[in-house]
């Protein structure tokens, strides 16, 4: 009984093709790949340090480095900054260290941007240097930023920028979920893990490069041998994301569709998949947060009233470019039009000669790649084994708000959610901001369940 579904009508009669061996095989390969990588993750015995560079912005916007300032790593010792503002304090083992800066040793007129942040917690991992940042400013800089206008206007601008940033990354993470729902009717709970996968794969390539996957590449120079530059790593992470999407569809979900397994059962299967993937990440990657090798501690740029770190500005521009490109692809190319046709009416699309399986496969690849890219951008801050799952609630809110199944809806919903939750911190505690997303979602479901851009249909 449970096998009879709406979808089954348009697919060949349910037949028990049995590829579980293939499935197990693929999982073993994935586990083996990650497993090969994991010794690499822990190989470096060169010790570890807490590193910081002390600098502030001079009158003409150039970096001025501070020498002779003292920081203290609790329980380890002190370090004094050299000519280039650099301090490296070696620490004996991985762990959490409280790092304090001695404000009295700073040159006259130089102060911390936020006077109470004299202490920073550094989470040091085995064999990896940890970069931390003390944001400094000169008297002139302090006066300038005060003149930019403090208070509500400035905060509003800053929160709007943060909201846009989060909204753009969220849009990339959400668009695949919405497209997959549109073409197959499946709510994929494992989508959050595809976001995490993107972030972690980027981290992995950033540190170990392609040699981390295929050891024989190790002697090669440049982008192949050692870890690769973050820019390449993000591209590789995206490819890894697309590959995962392709595999999941080909091995698991296509089989489920062919067997006529109902969508609800498929949804529960994605929940199981999500748990397996998440805890495999934890198992192999460990529980601590990690930062990319490049650009991990950047000084924020002052753009009018708004402060943003350069890496986020670049990532936001890329996001806008990618999202525009997705829009163009969906409206202008044949495959894009086919995707929208399948979302619209699958049976009609199929009977007018569209290869639905191929469309779905493409949607999985592109949706997963976009999610991976979004994950890599979220991970610019920090990569953790469950950071995708932590934003699953936001992803669901975004796609529900925009309208499940509509690509532009996910985009719009994500931007709105990003802005709303960040601006809400004007009124409520920042810890509670994700709850606002839930509230938005419940309100949408009560008054406009098809979402902002969705078409009204009976869903009750």
């Amino acid at each position, binding site marked *: *009984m*449970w096998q*009879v*579904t*709406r979808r089954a009508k348009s697919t060949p009669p349910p037949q028990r093709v049995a590829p*579980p061996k293939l499935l197990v095989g693929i999982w073993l390969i994935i586990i083996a790949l990650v*497993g090969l990588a*994991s*010794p690499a993750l822990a190989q470096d015995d060169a010790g570890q340090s807490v590193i910081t560079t002390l600098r502030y912005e001079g009158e003409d916007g150039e970096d001025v480095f501070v020498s002779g300032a003292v920081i203290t790593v609790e329980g380890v010792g002190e370090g004094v900054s050299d000519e280039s503002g650099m301090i490296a304090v070696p620490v004996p083992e991985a762990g959490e260290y409280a790092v304090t800066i001695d404000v009295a040793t700073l040159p006259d007129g130089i102060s911390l941007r936020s006077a109470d942040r004299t202490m920073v917690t550094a989470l040091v991992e085995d064999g990896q240097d940890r970069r931390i940042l003390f944001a400094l400013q000169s008297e002139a800089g302090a006066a300038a930023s005060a003149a930019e206008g403090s208070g509500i206007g400035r905060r509003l601008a800053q929160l709007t920028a943060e909201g846009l940033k989060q909204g753009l990354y969220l849009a990339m993470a959400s668009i695949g979920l919405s497209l997959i729902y549109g073409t197959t*009717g499946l*709510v994929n709970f494992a989508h959050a893990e595809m976001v995490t996968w993107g972030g972690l794969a980027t981290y992995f390539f950033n540190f170990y490069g392609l040699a981390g996957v295929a050891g024989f590449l190790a002697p090669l120079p440049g982008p192949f041998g050692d870890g690769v530059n973050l820019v390449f790593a993000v591209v590789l992470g995206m490819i890894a994301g697309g590959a995962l999407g392709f595999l999941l569809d080909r091995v698991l979900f296509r089989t*489920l569709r062919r067997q006529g*397994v*109902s*969508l*609800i*059962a498929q*949804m*529960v*299967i994605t*929940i*199981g*998949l*999500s*748990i*397996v993937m*998440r*805890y*495999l990440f*934890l*198992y*192999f990657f*460990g529980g601590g947060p990690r930062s990319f090798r490049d650009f991990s501690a950047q000084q924020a740029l002052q753009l009018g009233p708004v402060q943003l770190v350069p890496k986020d500005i670049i990532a936001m521009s890329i996001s806008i470019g990618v999202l525009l490109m997705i829009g163009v692809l969906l409206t202008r190319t044949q495959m894009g039009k086919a995707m929208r046709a399948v979302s619209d009416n699958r049976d009609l699309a199929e009977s007018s000669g569209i290869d639905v399986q191929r469309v779905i496969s493409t949607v999985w690849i592109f949706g997963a790649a976009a999610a991976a890219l979004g994950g890599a951008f979220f991970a610019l801050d920090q990569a953790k084994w469950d950071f995708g799952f932590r934003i699953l*609630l936001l992803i*669901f*809110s975004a796609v*529900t708000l925009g309208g499940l199944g509509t690509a532009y809806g996910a985009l719009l919903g994500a931007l709105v959610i990003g802005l709303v939750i960040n601006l809400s911190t004007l009124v409520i*505690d920042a*810890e*509670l901001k*994700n*709850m606002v997303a*839930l509230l938005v*979602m*419940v309100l949408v*479901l*009560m008054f406009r*369940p098809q979402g902002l851009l969705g078409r009204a249909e009976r*869903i*009750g």
Partner: protein
Amino acid sequence: MGIDWGIIIQQFFSQGVGINAMVFAMAAIGLNIHFGYTGLLNFGHVGFMAAGAYGVGMTVFWLDQSLWLGVLVGLLLPTIMALILGIPTLRLRADYLGITTIAASEALRIFVRWRGNQERTGSSGGINDFADEFFEFNIFTRPGTETYDFAPGGLTIFQFRANDLWVLLIGWTLVAFFLLLTWQLMRSPWGRALKSIREDEDAARALGKNAYAYKLQALVLGGVIGGVAGMLQVISRQAVQPDTFNPVITFLIWTILIIGGVGKVASPVAGSMIYWALISGLITFMRELIGTDLSDELETFLNLSVLNVDQLRFVIFGGALMLLMWFRPQGVFGNREEMALEDR
């Protein structure tokens, strides 16, 4: 060092009927009423457990009242939560209900661990040592007796601390009561109406049944049973911790329910005992394995060490959920006809 089979056997049996098995059996009884009998896709069951747990904890910690009043509050809060959650969402399609319930349970967790709630919920530190009143009545407390062992022929099969034994006695009695309740209810006209809604809501409506009201009643009943499970869990630990009410727990309850067989009265108990016995035996075995000469090989080839052996538990049950749902959705004892998995 060799492998100590004694401890593996003891863990297998003790955990199979232990506190976790009891708590999760009870929570799964609640979920069985939601999903098994009514077809409600509740992905936020852990939220009901949290509501019960914080009901009792906050009454003692924040309001400074007795534990017994707290138990009443612990019954009331899941009821309120079911109403708040059910009234807007029960009219929606199944997958929307799923998304909303998982979001609500996570939002509840975020809210109780908020530092602004320090004096009410204890924030991320939670509430500790609040249940002494419960253990005052412990009939197993005897001076000089730390643990109770059942060891025929020198092989320890069961080993429980006195306080745990007291919780188990009360807990399994309640489980038996809820089983009886479910059995009787599902034979009644009310229960038959629930099943008819699960099978075909439109047909039930056409016959004049108020499907919405029935679904809401089922949500409240199952939610309260989940709340009692949450209360027993935190009382046994003497600690209410926000992060024990992680969404992944909901899906552990789902896995347990599906192992036992959805829509059968006793299946939650069977599923819970099977799961906890097997997983505890297995994890203990792996711990023992790590203690042997093989430890270096395990660490090199499988990255397995005492640090992450416990995480395998989640990988295993997640995989079990996938494979069961795919190949045997009716579970070990269930009946495929009872699975409410059709698209509506």
